[in-house]
């Protein structure tokens, strides 16, 4: 449902998102504080505004570069692609939407998965791609997230998933809804295998993605300011017919309400993940004693 808000925002912020009209695209304007930033500086700061701490949305490629050990990411199942099995047509056919998203993002669907090292610790890593149809979860996302979890069950390395998604992909109908159950069931098995799952909630994570694996981390980590919720803010506002409180459904709001464990700046995310991975996978010296 909360894809509504994404569409909304996309429409409203269409012009804001443009880079400044300066040759070479060397400068960008912060969406939040309007500060003019030198692109190189912004990138060196992992696309976090040095002035106001606004966390820009980033691509899977950027996430790999910023948060994983250099050249350690080995992608798997990159060729898995969607099928328009309902022959779904809205204002555009789903088949056309797929083509468009694929040529825009150079990805077959809205999540990449693989293995990587974080501070020399091995991990199974998945990264959702909001740029691909709003990161919506259809069959491919559901299957790849499940494969990622199953890799963790097999190799016993922690599973890390960076979420960014408007929810279920309507163009795959009820099949999309079932991906919520499929991925959550796989997490039950991951728990049985005693392998930790870190859910890193990035802006925005809503709908069926939140109501399945995103909320089921052994540790739920959120990036500052990330919108996280079940229903989108617009739907909630229409339902209750009153103004939403300030900061509603933002990472800090969820922290205050006990729904996420920590809110961590992207600049400290890698070291925090490494610390948590060490702590949770540390073998105790008292093994054997029961």
């Amino acid at each position, binding site marked *: 449902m909360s894809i509504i808000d994404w569409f909304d925002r996309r429409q409203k912020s269409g012009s804001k998102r443009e880079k400044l009209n300066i040759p070479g695209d060397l400068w960008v304007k912060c969406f939040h504080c309007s500060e003019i930033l030198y692109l190189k500086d912004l990138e060196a700061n992992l696309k976090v505004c040095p002035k106001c701490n606004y966390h820009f949305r980033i691509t899977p490629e950027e996430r790999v570069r910023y948060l994983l050990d250099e050249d350690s990411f080995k992608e798997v199942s990159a060729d898995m692609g*969607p099928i328009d099995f309902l022959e779904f047509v*809205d204002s555009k056919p789903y088949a056309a939407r797929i083509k468009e998203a694929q040529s825009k993002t150079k990805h077959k669907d809205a999540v990449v998965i693989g293995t990587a090292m974080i501070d020399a610790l091995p991990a199974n890593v998945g990264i959702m791609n909001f740029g691909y149809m709003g990161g919506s979860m259809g069959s491919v996302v559901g299957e790849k997230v499940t494969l990622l979890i199953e890799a963790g069950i097999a190799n016993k390395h922690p599973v890390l998933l960076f979420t960014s998604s408007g929810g279920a992909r309507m163009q795959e109908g009820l099949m999309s809804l*079932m991906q919520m159950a499929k991925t959550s069931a796989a997490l039950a098995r991951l728990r049985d295998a005693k392998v930790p799952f870190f859910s890193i909630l990035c802006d925005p994570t809503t709908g069926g993605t939140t109501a*399945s694996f995103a909320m089921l981390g052994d540790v739920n980590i959120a990036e500052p300011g990330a919108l996280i919720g079940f229903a989108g803010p617009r739907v909630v506002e229409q339902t209750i017919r009153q103004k939403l409180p300030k900061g509603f459904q933002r990472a800090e709001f969820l922290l205050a309400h*006990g729904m996420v464990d920590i809110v961590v700046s992207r600049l400290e995310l890698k070291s925090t993940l490494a610390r948590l991975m060490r702590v949770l996978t540390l073998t105790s010296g008292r093994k054997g004693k029961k």
Partner: protein
Amino acid sequence: MKILEFEKPIEELYVKIEELKRLSTDSEIDMADEISKIEKRASQMKKEIFSNLSPTQVIQISRHPNRPSTLGLARLIMDDFVELHGDRVFGDDPSIVGGPAVMDGRRVMVIGHQKGMDTKDNIYRNFGMPNPEGYRKALRLMQMAETFEMPIITFVDTPGAYPGLGAEERGQAEAIARNLREMANLTVPVISYIVGEGGSGGALGIAVANRVYMLQYAVYSVISPEGCASILYRDAKHAEIAAKNMRITAPDVLNLGLADGIIPEPVGGAHQDWPLTAQEIKSSIASSLKKYDGMSKDAIKNERYDKFRSFGKFNVGSR
């Protein structure tokens, strides 16, 4: 009882029949022939209309205010049923009900959405849209069923989980997600019936089942057609097209492999005859549960896991 738009031609004939009956008693003219002719036409028309329903018409039936409810079905199907309340965390959500029951000498746990029968009741039941407490109550009861080795029967009928402020504050997403994960771990059989509206995550939150059956005129969808239309078509008026495209009727869901069977409804829909509907569901429960007698706990759990693990249509691509 509420007459749906497409039922009106049938209703008109019935009104005419009543009129003729009154007229014939008053005037002592024998109109039996005329009456039986119209009665035949009415039942013929009913059959025709109900065998050619559009998805939008099916949705109207699925949302009929007199659609059988969980509490109604529990009373009709079960020999005994004790409703239990509360999630032991925050409160009791009247839009999900449940409790232990006995059917033909067999213990089961009944859980389901509960809509209201009139406006006042509907406000109390929040129109069948649960808050997190509802899902947490459902899970508590399911885990009680696990402890006492009782099969779980769930009845689904919700427009969706409630998109309210408090629901967000108290973790609607977490409550549903947790149910999806924990239901996967149950070692007792779970049988789910989509009775009316199977509204998205709010429905799935109590429907991760070994067997999922849909009533003939129930619907099951990832988003309401109105919601889908307002997002993808930017206009809720396109709900009719959205309903068609999303394939949400029982035969469609069966075709997609996401339901295991269809429970037939009386002509005119389940709201016309609760006892008959209850009887159909009861015999389905009995035959479904028989399959699990003597099945090991692991086998029951794995069957459910494998079922959901197999859902998805995609291109594997070259590796």
